Protein backbone atom coordinates (compact mmCIF):
# COMPACT_ATOMS: atom_id res chain seq x y z
CA UNK A 1 0.00 0.00 0.00
CA UNK A 2 2.82 2.34 0.88
CA UNK A 3 4.42 1.43 -2.42
CA UNK A 4 1.33 2.27 -4.41
CA UNK A 5 0.84 5.67 -2.77
CA UNK A 6 4.46 6.64 -3.17
CA UNK A 7 4.80 5.76 -6.81
CA UNK A 8 1.48 7.21 -7.92
CA UNK A 9 2.96 10.63 -8.66
CA UNK A 10 5.19 9.02 -11.29
CA UNK A 11 2.18 8.26 -13.47
CA UNK A 12 0.78 11.73 -13.34
CA UNK A 13 1.66 13.53 -16.51
CA UNK A 14 4.09 16.41 -16.58
CA UNK A 15 1.34 18.78 -17.59
CA UNK A 16 -0.75 17.91 -14.56
CA UNK A 17 2.20 18.10 -12.17
CA UNK A 18 3.18 21.49 -13.53
CA UNK A 19 -0.42 22.58 -13.29
CA UNK A 20 -0.39 21.57 -9.64
CA UNK A 21 2.87 23.38 -9.02
CA UNK A 22 1.76 26.56 -10.73
CA UNK A 23 -1.50 26.65 -8.84
CA UNK A 24 -0.05 25.69 -5.46
CA UNK A 25 2.66 28.30 -5.67
CA UNK A 26 0.52 31.09 -7.02
CA UNK A 27 0.72 34.24 -4.93
CA UNK A 28 -3.03 34.73 -4.83
CA UNK A 29 -4.82 31.44 -4.26
CA UNK A 30 -1.99 29.02 -3.84
CA UNK A 31 -1.88 26.89 -0.77
CA UNK A 32 1.82 27.38 -0.10
CA UNK A 33 1.44 31.10 0.14
CA UNK A 34 -1.69 30.72 2.22
CA UNK A 35 0.27 28.65 4.72
CA UNK A 36 3.10 31.18 4.72
CA UNK A 37 0.63 33.98 5.37
CA UNK A 38 -0.81 32.16 8.35
CA UNK A 39 2.71 31.97 9.76
CA UNK A 40 3.09 35.67 9.26
CA UNK A 41 5.40 35.58 6.24
CA UNK A 42 4.60 37.57 3.15
CA UNK A 43 3.56 35.87 -0.07
CA UNK A 44 6.43 34.98 -2.35
CA UNK A 45 5.94 34.87 -6.08
CA UNK A 46 7.95 31.69 -6.47
CA UNK A 47 7.72 31.16 -10.18
CA UNK A 48 8.93 34.59 -11.20
CA UNK A 49 12.07 34.55 -9.10
CA UNK A 50 15.12 33.05 -10.81
CA UNK A 51 16.63 31.76 -7.59
CA UNK A 52 13.58 29.60 -6.83
CA UNK A 53 13.43 27.81 -10.14
CA UNK A 54 16.04 25.16 -9.53
CA UNK A 55 14.81 24.13 -6.07
CA UNK A 56 11.25 23.93 -7.37
CA UNK A 57 12.33 21.83 -10.31
CA UNK A 58 14.45 19.47 -8.25
CA UNK A 59 11.97 19.03 -5.41
CA UNK A 60 9.03 18.36 -7.68
CA UNK A 61 11.19 15.97 -9.70
CA UNK A 62 12.04 14.04 -6.57
CA UNK A 63 8.43 14.00 -5.48
CA UNK A 64 7.42 12.46 -8.75
CA UNK A 65 10.09 9.83 -9.06
CA UNK A 66 11.23 8.68 -5.64
CA UNK A 67 8.44 6.16 -5.18
CA UNK A 68 8.93 4.57 -8.57
CA UNK A 69 12.70 4.32 -8.29
CA UNK A 70 12.41 2.79 -4.87
CA UNK A 71 10.75 -0.25 -6.44
CA UNK A 72 14.05 -1.19 -8.04
CA UNK A 73 15.91 -0.87 -4.75
CA UNK A 74 13.29 -2.88 -2.91
CA UNK A 75 13.64 -5.62 -5.49
CA UNK A 76 17.40 -5.60 -5.07
CA UNK A 77 17.17 -5.74 -1.29
CA UNK A 78 14.74 -8.62 -1.47
CA UNK A 79 17.41 -10.54 -3.34
CA UNK A 80 19.66 -10.74 -0.30
CA UNK A 81 19.60 -14.22 1.15
CA UNK A 82 18.02 -14.54 4.62
CA UNK A 83 20.92 -16.65 5.84
CA UNK A 84 23.16 -13.62 5.77
CA UNK A 85 20.72 -11.80 8.03
CA UNK A 86 20.69 -14.72 10.45
CA UNK A 87 24.46 -14.80 10.50
CA UNK A 88 24.67 -11.14 11.38
CA UNK A 89 22.06 -11.44 14.10
CA UNK A 90 23.93 -14.32 15.64
CA UNK A 91 27.04 -12.20 15.67
CA UNK A 92 25.08 -9.70 17.71
CA UNK A 93 24.60 -6.87 15.25
CA UNK A 94 21.78 -4.40 15.83
CA UNK A 95 19.61 -3.18 12.96
CA UNK A 96 21.66 -0.15 12.09
CA UNK A 97 24.82 -2.23 11.76
CA UNK A 98 23.06 -4.79 9.63
CA UNK A 99 21.98 -2.12 7.24
CA UNK A 100 25.30 -0.44 6.87
CA UNK A 101 27.35 -3.59 6.66
CA UNK A 102 25.10 -5.96 4.75
CA UNK A 103 22.37 -4.22 2.82
CA UNK A 104 24.32 -1.33 1.36
CA UNK A 105 27.23 -3.38 0.01
CA UNK A 106 24.84 -5.95 -1.44
CA UNK A 107 22.87 -3.47 -3.47
CA UNK A 108 25.92 -1.56 -4.61
CA UNK A 109 25.99 -3.12 -8.11
CA UNK A 110 22.36 -2.20 -8.68
CA UNK A 111 22.84 1.33 -7.48
CA UNK A 112 25.83 1.84 -9.75
CA UNK A 113 24.03 0.42 -12.76
CA UNK A 114 21.17 2.80 -12.22
CA UNK A 115 23.58 5.66 -11.69
CA UNK A 116 25.20 5.03 -15.05
CA UNK A 117 21.89 4.80 -16.84
CA UNK A 118 20.76 8.04 -15.23
CA UNK A 119 24.00 9.75 -16.15
CA UNK A 120 23.21 8.79 -19.71
CA UNK A 121 20.20 11.04 -19.52
CA UNK A 122 22.08 13.80 -17.77
CA UNK A 123 22.18 16.09 -20.73
CA UNK A 124 18.61 15.41 -21.72
CA UNK A 125 17.27 17.05 -18.59
CA UNK A 126 13.49 16.99 -18.83
CA UNK A 127 12.49 19.37 -21.54
CA UNK A 128 8.80 19.23 -20.80
CA UNK A 129 8.87 20.32 -17.22
CA UNK A 130 11.28 23.16 -17.79
CA UNK A 131 9.22 24.29 -20.73
CA UNK A 132 6.00 24.24 -18.76
CA UNK A 133 7.36 25.97 -15.70
CA UNK A 134 9.50 28.70 -17.11
CA UNK A 135 8.66 32.19 -18.24
CA UNK A 136 10.80 35.06 -19.57
CA UNK A 137 11.49 36.27 -16.05
CA UNK A 138 13.52 33.18 -15.18
CA UNK A 139 15.22 32.39 -18.48
CA UNK A 140 18.64 32.90 -16.98
CA UNK A 141 18.39 30.02 -14.50
CA UNK A 142 15.72 27.94 -16.14
CA UNK A 143 16.81 27.44 -19.72
CA UNK A 144 18.34 24.08 -20.48
CA UNK A 145 19.90 23.09 -23.78
CA UNK A 146 16.73 21.45 -25.05
CA UNK A 147 14.47 24.41 -24.39
CA UNK A 148 17.01 26.73 -25.90
CA UNK A 149 17.19 24.53 -28.99
CA UNK A 150 13.41 24.53 -29.17
CA UNK A 151 13.14 28.30 -28.95
CA UNK A 152 15.87 28.96 -31.44
CA UNK A 153 14.96 26.22 -33.84
CA UNK A 154 11.26 25.83 -34.05
CA UNK A 155 10.10 29.20 -32.87
CA UNK A 156 12.74 31.34 -34.54
CA UNK A 157 13.33 29.04 -37.51
CA UNK A 158 17.02 29.01 -36.85
CA UNK A 159 17.24 25.37 -37.91
CA UNK A 160 20.93 24.92 -38.61
CA UNK A 161 22.17 26.52 -35.42
CA UNK A 162 19.88 24.59 -33.17
CA UNK A 163 20.48 21.30 -34.98
CA UNK A 164 24.16 21.79 -34.31
CA UNK A 165 23.46 22.48 -30.65
CA UNK A 166 21.36 19.33 -30.47
CA UNK A 167 24.07 17.19 -32.01
CA UNK A 168 26.65 18.63 -29.67
CA UNK A 169 24.35 17.80 -26.79
CA UNK A 170 24.14 14.17 -27.89
CA UNK A 171 27.89 13.88 -28.26
CA UNK A 172 28.55 15.11 -24.77
CA UNK A 173 25.84 12.85 -23.43
CA UNK A 174 27.47 9.85 -25.05
CA UNK A 175 30.91 10.81 -23.79
CA UNK A 176 29.62 11.08 -20.24
CA UNK A 177 28.03 7.65 -20.35
CA UNK A 178 31.14 6.14 -21.84
CA UNK A 179 33.42 7.62 -19.19
CA UNK A 180 31.05 6.67 -16.40
CA UNK A 181 30.93 3.12 -17.65
CA UNK A 182 34.73 2.88 -17.85
CA UNK A 183 35.16 4.31 -14.36
CA UNK A 184 32.59 1.97 -12.96
CA UNK A 185 34.22 -1.05 -14.52
CA UNK A 186 37.62 -0.07 -13.14
CA UNK A 187 36.42 0.77 -9.66
CA UNK A 188 33.70 -1.72 -8.95
CA UNK A 189 33.61 -4.42 -11.61
CA UNK A 190 30.04 -3.61 -12.60
CA UNK A 191 29.33 -2.06 -15.95
CA UNK A 192 26.55 -1.70 -18.46
CA UNK A 193 28.58 -3.13 -21.33
Amino acid sequence: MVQITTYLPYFISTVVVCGMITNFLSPSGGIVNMALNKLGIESINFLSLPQWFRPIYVISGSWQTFGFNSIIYVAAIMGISPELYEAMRIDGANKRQIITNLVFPSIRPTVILILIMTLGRLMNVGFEKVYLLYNPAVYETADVIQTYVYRQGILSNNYSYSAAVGLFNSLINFAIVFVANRLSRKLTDTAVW
Partner: protein
Amino acid sequence: MMRTERNIGDKIFDTVVYTFIAIAVVVCVYPFIYIVSVSISSGAAVNRGDVWLYPVDLNFEAMKTVLGYKQLWISFANTVFYTVAGTFLNIVFTCLAAYPLSRKSFFLRKKLNFLLAFTMYFSGGLIPIYIVVTGLGLYNSRLAMLIPVLISAYNVMICRSAFESVSEELYENAALEGANDFIILYRIAIPVIKPTLAVLTLYYAVAHYNDFFNAMLYISDRNKEPLQSFLRRILLQASMEIMQTTSIDMAALNQSTLQVRYVCIVVAIIPVLIFVPFVHKYLVQGTMLGSVKG
Protein backbone atom coordinates in the same frame (compact mmCIF):
# COMPACT_ATOMS: atom_id res chain seq x y z
CA MET B 1 12.72 -18.82 13.73
CA MET B 2 14.96 -17.34 16.36
CA ARG B 3 13.27 -14.64 18.38
CA THR B 4 15.80 -11.82 18.57
CA GLU B 5 16.12 -9.35 21.41
CA ARG B 6 14.62 -5.95 20.81
CA ASN B 7 16.80 -3.48 22.54
CA ILE B 8 16.38 0.28 22.78
CA GLY B 9 18.62 0.88 19.77
CA ASP B 10 16.38 -1.20 17.55
CA LYS B 11 13.25 0.52 18.78
CA ILE B 12 14.61 3.98 18.10
CA PHE B 13 15.71 2.91 14.67
CA ASP B 14 12.28 1.48 13.92
CA THR B 15 10.61 4.72 14.99
CA VAL B 16 12.84 6.75 12.74
CA VAL B 17 12.15 4.51 9.77
CA TYR B 18 8.40 4.54 10.30
CA THR B 19 8.44 8.32 10.63
CA PHE B 20 10.21 8.61 7.29
CA ILE B 21 7.68 6.34 5.66
CA ALA B 22 4.77 8.28 7.15
CA ILE B 23 6.20 11.57 5.88
CA ALA B 24 6.76 10.09 2.42
CA VAL B 25 3.20 8.84 2.18
CA VAL B 26 1.71 12.10 3.42
CA VAL B 27 3.81 14.13 1.00
CA CYS B 28 2.64 12.00 -1.88
CA VAL B 29 -0.99 11.81 -0.94
CA TYR B 30 -1.75 15.28 0.43
CA PRO B 31 -1.70 17.16 -2.91
CA PHE B 32 -4.30 14.79 -4.31
CA ILE B 33 -6.56 15.09 -1.30
CA TYR B 34 -6.29 18.86 -1.43
CA ILE B 35 -7.18 18.98 -5.10
CA VAL B 36 -10.20 16.75 -4.68
CA SER B 37 -11.37 18.78 -1.70
CA VAL B 38 -11.13 22.03 -3.60
CA SER B 39 -13.00 20.49 -6.52
CA ILE B 40 -16.05 19.64 -4.47
CA SER B 41 -16.16 22.69 -2.21
CA SER B 42 -18.18 25.78 -2.88
CA GLY B 43 -16.53 28.59 -4.79
CA ALA B 44 -16.99 31.06 -1.98
CA ALA B 45 -15.11 28.88 0.45
CA VAL B 46 -12.24 28.45 -1.98
CA ASN B 47 -11.98 32.16 -2.64
CA ARG B 48 -11.95 32.87 1.08
CA GLY B 49 -9.11 30.42 1.47
CA ASP B 50 -10.94 28.16 3.88
CA VAL B 51 -10.16 24.89 2.16
CA TRP B 52 -6.97 23.18 3.16
CA LEU B 53 -7.81 19.51 3.72
CA TYR B 54 -11.51 18.82 3.91
CA PRO B 55 -14.11 20.07 1.47
CA VAL B 56 -16.02 23.04 2.80
CA ASP B 57 -19.65 23.52 1.82
CA LEU B 58 -20.01 20.45 -0.34
CA ASN B 59 -20.92 21.71 -3.78
CA PHE B 60 -20.65 20.12 -7.20
CA GLU B 61 -21.14 23.21 -9.34
CA ALA B 62 -17.54 23.43 -10.43
CA MET B 63 -17.58 19.82 -11.54
CA LYS B 64 -20.77 20.35 -13.50
CA THR B 65 -19.31 23.33 -15.31
CA VAL B 66 -16.22 21.53 -16.38
CA LEU B 67 -17.83 18.23 -17.25
CA GLY B 68 -20.29 20.05 -19.47
CA TYR B 69 -17.54 21.53 -21.57
CA LYS B 70 -17.37 19.75 -24.89
CA GLN B 71 -13.71 20.32 -25.75
CA LEU B 72 -12.73 18.38 -22.67
CA TRP B 73 -14.47 15.29 -23.97
CA ILE B 74 -13.14 15.74 -27.49
CA SER B 75 -9.59 15.84 -26.27
CA PHE B 76 -10.23 12.97 -23.88
CA ALA B 77 -11.53 10.85 -26.75
CA ASN B 78 -8.45 11.75 -28.75
CA THR B 79 -6.21 10.67 -25.92
CA VAL B 80 -8.03 7.36 -25.58
CA PHE B 81 -7.60 6.75 -29.29
CA TYR B 82 -3.91 7.62 -29.24
CA THR B 83 -3.31 5.45 -26.18
CA VAL B 84 -5.13 2.38 -27.43
CA ALA B 85 -4.01 2.49 -31.05
CA GLY B 86 -0.54 3.65 -30.13
CA THR B 87 0.06 0.98 -27.53
CA PHE B 88 -1.20 -1.73 -29.83
CA LEU B 89 1.10 -0.64 -32.66
CA ASN B 90 3.97 -0.31 -30.21
CA ILE B 91 3.63 -3.84 -28.94
CA VAL B 92 3.33 -5.31 -32.42
CA PHE B 93 6.40 -3.55 -33.72
CA THR B 94 8.43 -4.12 -30.58
CA CYS B 95 7.81 -7.85 -30.80
CA LEU B 96 8.63 -7.87 -34.49
CA ALA B 97 11.88 -6.10 -33.76
CA ALA B 98 12.88 -8.08 -30.70
CA TYR B 99 12.19 -11.58 -32.02
CA PRO B 100 14.87 -11.74 -34.76
CA LEU B 101 17.34 -10.10 -32.43
CA SER B 102 16.83 -12.89 -29.94
CA ARG B 103 17.45 -15.80 -32.30
CA LYS B 104 21.08 -16.77 -32.40
CA SER B 105 20.84 -17.96 -35.99
CA PHE B 106 20.15 -14.45 -37.26
CA PHE B 107 23.23 -13.27 -39.10
CA LEU B 108 22.88 -9.52 -38.53
CA ARG B 109 22.28 -9.95 -34.82
CA LYS B 110 25.41 -8.39 -33.36
CA LYS B 111 25.44 -5.38 -35.64
CA LEU B 112 21.79 -4.57 -35.14
CA ASN B 113 22.06 -4.98 -31.38
CA PHE B 114 24.87 -2.51 -31.32
CA LEU B 115 22.96 -0.01 -33.43
CA LEU B 116 19.96 -0.36 -31.15
CA ALA B 117 22.01 0.37 -28.04
CA PHE B 118 23.69 3.22 -29.83
CA THR B 119 20.42 4.99 -30.52
CA MET B 120 19.59 4.85 -26.86
CA TYR B 121 22.47 7.12 -26.01
CA PHE B 122 22.94 9.10 -29.14
CA SER B 123 20.36 10.68 -31.39
CA GLY B 124 20.17 13.47 -33.89
CA GLY B 125 18.30 15.76 -31.59
CA LEU B 126 15.07 17.64 -31.69
CA ILE B 127 15.43 19.57 -34.92
CA PRO B 128 16.30 16.70 -37.25
CA ILE B 129 13.37 14.67 -35.92
CA TYR B 130 11.05 17.60 -36.41
CA ILE B 131 12.30 18.14 -39.95
CA VAL B 132 11.88 14.48 -40.83
CA VAL B 133 8.37 14.24 -39.46
CA THR B 134 7.12 17.39 -41.12
CA GLY B 135 8.96 16.47 -44.29
CA LEU B 136 6.98 13.25 -44.40
CA GLY B 137 3.83 15.30 -44.43
CA LEU B 138 2.68 14.25 -41.00
CA TYR B 139 2.21 17.70 -39.60
CA ASN B 140 -1.21 18.10 -38.00
CA SER B 141 -2.15 14.50 -38.68
CA ARG B 142 -3.06 11.92 -36.09
CA LEU B 143 -0.27 9.68 -37.34
CA ALA B 144 2.24 12.20 -36.03
CA MET B 145 1.33 11.13 -32.54
CA LEU B 146 1.76 7.45 -33.32
CA ILE B 147 4.64 6.97 -35.71
CA PRO B 148 7.60 8.92 -34.31
CA VAL B 149 7.32 7.00 -31.03
CA LEU B 150 6.61 3.63 -32.54
CA ILE B 151 9.53 1.79 -30.97
CA SER B 152 11.46 2.45 -27.82
CA ALA B 153 14.94 0.93 -27.90
CA TYR B 154 14.90 0.28 -24.20
CA ASN B 155 11.69 -1.71 -24.43
CA VAL B 156 12.97 -3.68 -27.39
CA MET B 157 15.90 -4.73 -25.26
CA ILE B 158 13.62 -5.85 -22.46
CA CYS B 159 11.51 -7.79 -24.95
CA ARG B 160 14.57 -9.30 -26.51
CA SER B 161 15.83 -10.59 -23.14
CA ALA B 162 12.45 -12.15 -22.56
CA PHE B 163 12.51 -13.89 -25.94
CA GLU B 164 16.01 -15.15 -25.28
CA SER B 165 14.80 -16.95 -22.22
CA VAL B 166 12.52 -19.14 -24.32
CA SER B 167 14.20 -22.49 -24.77
CA GLU B 168 15.63 -23.26 -28.17
CA GLU B 169 14.00 -26.69 -28.22
CA LEU B 170 10.55 -25.22 -28.45
CA TYR B 171 11.60 -23.46 -31.61
CA GLU B 172 13.19 -26.54 -33.08
CA ASN B 173 10.15 -28.68 -32.43
CA ALA B 174 7.94 -26.13 -34.08
CA ALA B 175 10.23 -25.88 -37.08
CA LEU B 176 10.20 -29.67 -37.42
CA GLU B 177 6.46 -29.58 -37.62
CA GLY B 178 6.68 -27.15 -40.50
CA ALA B 179 5.96 -23.81 -38.82
CA ASN B 180 7.47 -20.74 -40.38
CA ASP B 181 8.84 -17.87 -38.31
CA PHE B 182 5.63 -15.88 -38.15
CA ILE B 183 3.71 -18.81 -36.74
CA ILE B 184 6.49 -19.50 -34.25
CA LEU B 185 6.40 -15.92 -33.12
CA TYR B 186 2.67 -15.74 -32.82
CA ARG B 187 1.83 -19.15 -31.42
CA ILE B 188 4.85 -19.95 -29.29
CA ALA B 189 7.09 -17.05 -28.37
CA ILE B 190 4.45 -14.49 -27.50
CA PRO B 191 2.34 -16.62 -25.17
CA VAL B 192 5.48 -17.58 -23.28
CA ILE B 193 6.47 -14.02 -22.51
CA LYS B 194 3.03 -12.69 -21.61
CA PRO B 195 4.12 -11.07 -18.29
CA THR B 196 6.80 -9.09 -20.07
CA LEU B 197 4.31 -7.95 -22.65
CA ALA B 198 1.96 -6.86 -19.88
CA VAL B 199 4.69 -4.69 -18.44
CA LEU B 200 5.59 -3.21 -21.80
CA THR B 201 1.95 -2.45 -22.49
CA LEU B 202 1.85 -0.57 -19.23
CA TYR B 203 4.93 1.50 -20.02
CA TYR B 204 3.79 2.37 -23.50
CA ALA B 205 0.23 3.16 -22.41
CA VAL B 206 1.42 5.56 -19.74
CA ALA B 207 3.80 7.22 -22.19
CA HIS B 208 1.00 7.76 -24.69
CA TYR B 209 -1.50 8.97 -22.13
CA ASN B 210 0.90 11.54 -20.75
CA ASP B 211 2.40 12.64 -24.02
CA PHE B 212 2.02 16.30 -24.77
CA PHE B 213 5.35 17.03 -26.35
CA ASN B 214 4.52 15.41 -29.68
CA ALA B 215 1.18 17.15 -29.73
CA MET B 216 2.80 20.46 -29.02
CA LEU B 217 5.19 20.05 -31.92
CA TYR B 218 2.97 18.55 -34.55
CA ILE B 219 -0.68 19.24 -33.88
CA SER B 220 -2.44 22.53 -34.12
CA ASP B 221 -5.97 21.40 -34.92
CA ARG B 222 -8.15 21.59 -31.81
CA ASN B 223 -10.14 18.56 -32.85
CA LYS B 224 -7.11 16.31 -32.81
CA GLU B 225 -5.40 17.45 -29.69
CA PRO B 226 -4.95 15.06 -26.78
CA LEU B 227 -6.08 15.70 -23.24
CA GLN B 228 -2.67 16.93 -22.12
CA SER B 229 -2.63 19.78 -24.62
CA PHE B 230 -6.08 20.80 -23.48
CA LEU B 231 -4.96 20.69 -19.85
CA ARG B 232 -1.95 22.77 -20.63
CA ARG B 233 -4.09 25.53 -22.03
CA ILE B 234 -6.39 25.54 -19.07
CA LEU B 235 -3.88 25.08 -16.30
CA LEU B 236 -0.80 26.85 -17.39
CA GLN B 237 -1.84 29.45 -19.81
CA ALA B 238 -4.75 30.25 -17.53
CA SER B 239 -7.16 30.14 -20.37
CA MET B 240 -10.59 31.39 -19.48
CA GLU B 241 -12.26 29.51 -22.24
CA ILE B 242 -14.30 27.24 -20.01
CA MET B 243 -15.85 30.14 -18.21
CA GLN B 244 -16.44 32.03 -21.40
CA THR B 245 -18.06 29.33 -23.44
CA THR B 246 -20.39 27.86 -20.86
CA SER B 247 -23.13 30.34 -20.31
CA ILE B 248 -22.91 30.35 -16.58
CA ASP B 249 -22.60 33.58 -14.73
CA MET B 250 -19.48 33.13 -12.66
CA ALA B 251 -20.19 35.79 -10.13
CA ALA B 252 -23.73 34.65 -9.58
CA LEU B 253 -22.70 31.13 -8.75
CA ASN B 254 -19.68 32.35 -6.84
CA GLN B 255 -17.26 30.05 -8.53
CA SER B 256 -13.56 30.22 -8.52
CA THR B 257 -11.34 29.89 -11.56
CA LEU B 258 -8.90 28.04 -9.38
CA GLN B 259 -11.53 25.43 -8.76
CA VAL B 260 -12.20 24.92 -12.44
CA ARG B 261 -8.55 24.17 -12.97
CA TYR B 262 -8.42 21.71 -10.13
CA VAL B 263 -11.45 19.89 -11.44
CA CYS B 264 -9.67 19.48 -14.76
CA ILE B 265 -6.75 17.94 -12.94
CA VAL B 266 -9.05 15.54 -11.13
CA VAL B 267 -10.66 14.49 -14.40
CA ALA B 268 -7.27 13.85 -15.93
CA ILE B 269 -5.95 11.87 -13.03
CA ILE B 270 -8.95 9.65 -12.34
CA PRO B 271 -8.24 7.10 -15.11
CA VAL B 272 -4.66 6.77 -13.91
CA LEU B 273 -5.63 6.37 -10.28
CA ILE B 274 -8.15 3.71 -11.13
CA PHE B 275 -5.81 1.84 -13.41
CA VAL B 276 -2.65 1.72 -11.33
CA PRO B 277 -3.63 -0.47 -8.36
CA PHE B 278 -4.65 -3.19 -10.80
CA VAL B 279 -1.29 -3.28 -12.48
CA HIS B 280 0.80 -2.99 -9.33
CA LYS B 281 1.97 -6.57 -9.56
CA TYR B 282 3.13 -6.27 -13.16
CA LEU B 283 4.85 -3.01 -12.43
CA VAL B 284 7.02 -4.48 -9.71
CA GLN B 285 7.90 -7.43 -11.91
CA GLY B 286 8.70 -5.15 -14.79
CA THR B 287 11.12 -2.88 -13.02
CA MET B 288 13.00 -5.92 -11.87
CA LEU B 289 13.25 -7.13 -15.45
CA GLY B 290 14.51 -3.83 -16.65
CA SER B 291 17.17 -3.31 -14.07
CA VAL B 292 18.44 -6.72 -13.08
CA LYS B 293 18.90 -8.00 -16.61
CA GLY B 294 20.26 -4.66 -17.68
